[in-house]
């Protein structure tokens, strides 16, 4: 992984910067306004609207994406901070046209109702199982405590993650 270098972040005018990063495996190089949050960069500049904005202040987790494998609230993460980093969004979970096991489990287990919070839950769950494939129920509850869902009551979300952990979805 290349270290961030100020050379890469040349200022082209007052607020414009050149941003180089990798989004869902694809190299991205764009001149952007440095006032853009990562969330807005993904949605407006790249058209990746799977990532949602709800509270806009880090309280709800709807905007969680992975930055170098860390699940972060992209509404509070400036796009400029993503220089040289690897971003994974919900669009990047699907492989060869097939849904990720977590996505299949969320659908099949009824972990999705209105669906607005779902991308955030998927990304946080993905990061958890990647770092802790044997996550206990308590680990799952803890890891998802920064994501809010107003529909499901959480039980089906926790169950879906457990099913994936147990290998019931491939």
């Amino acid at each position, binding site marked *: 992984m290349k*270290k*961030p*270098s*100020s*050379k890469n*972040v040349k*200022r082209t005018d*007052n*607020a414009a*910067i050149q941003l180089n990063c990798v989004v869902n495996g694809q190299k991205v190089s764009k001149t952007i*306004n*440095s*006032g*853009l*949050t990562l*969330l*807005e960069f993904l949605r407006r500049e790249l058209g990746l609207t799977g990532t949602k*904005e709800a509270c*806009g*202040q*880090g*309280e709800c*987790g709807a905007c*969680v994406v992975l930055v170098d494998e*860390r*699940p*972060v*609230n992209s*509404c*509070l*993460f*400036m796009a*400029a*901070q993503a*220089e040289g980093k690897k971003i994974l969004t919900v669009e990047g979970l699907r492989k060869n046209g097939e849904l990720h096991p977590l996505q299949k489990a969320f659908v099949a287990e009824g972990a999705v109702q209105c669906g607005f919070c779902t991308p955030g839950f998927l990304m*946080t769950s993905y990061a958890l199982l990647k770092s802790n494939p044997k996550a206990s129920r308590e680990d799952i509850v*803890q*890891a*998802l*405590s*920064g*994501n809010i869902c107003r529909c499901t009551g959480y039980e089906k979300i926790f169950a879906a993650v457990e099913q994936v952990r147990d290998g019931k979805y491939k």
Partner: protein
Amino acid sequence: MPPSNRCGTASTNKLMLKVTIAKPASLKDLYKTLARTPGPRKFLAGGTDLCVSARHGAGVPCNWLDISDIPELQAVKISGKTIQLGSARRLHDLENSPLVQRWLPALHKAMPHFASPPLRQMATLGGNCANASPSADGVCALCAEGAKAVIRHPNGKQTLLPVEKLFTGPKKTILKQDELIVRFEIPKTGHRGSYQKLGARRALAISKIALAATAWLDGNIITDIRIFLGAVGPTVLRACKTEAALRGSALGSEKSLRQAAELIASECSPIDDQRSTARYRRAMSPVLLERALAELREERL
């Protein structure tokens, strides 16, 4: 209209902050970048408080220097008899550090209470101190651990200051523009620690009241104890009288606990706000003290 050198959001796009961000690669590069960045300036670390304030147009300077990836600010290590914690190290890393777990028990125990898992992947102790909220969980724990902040001045000089001396009021520190907390230094002593907090829920709750304690024991006798309270004063408060009453007494002695419980309530200076009332906060201070002392008693080193 706010002055043009203060940020806010563009009216057409509430997520577009009116800020300019530079991302220096090293501490040396930071000071070079600083010299060519117009003021007023602000350091951007985790951004979890700064971005929220900026979005609300709360008079935040609009030229930001992103220090979140500066390698010199990432240490988690033992140097002689001192533990060094880099100011821009993410809390998630500290939470999972065996070194923090072994040597800084109050800080380790504070981590799960801090905001939420994704916010801990961004937030830093340096930012928690610079933001200077009286309810900051990281600040309260650092103070109990006896941490000192290493402050680097723009001229290259560094000073060492106990963390509790950084604060002058809610959201106010002694830090002047361009003065940067580079790391925290904490004596490696092998003590016990506890962190207690009351909030509206387990995650993402700003404290109604918090208490961090560290203790040094000789058998069952408390030879020294440090107790700090969060969210019950304009800054994190040290419960000096309570500490004095407990020093020299047996951990778990009913008599000293009763005396300490009365003292700690008198040492709080809470207010009513949207999260709680002064009365409730004061009434809960002995409860948290009792829980902390029970935890200190049970803890095995």
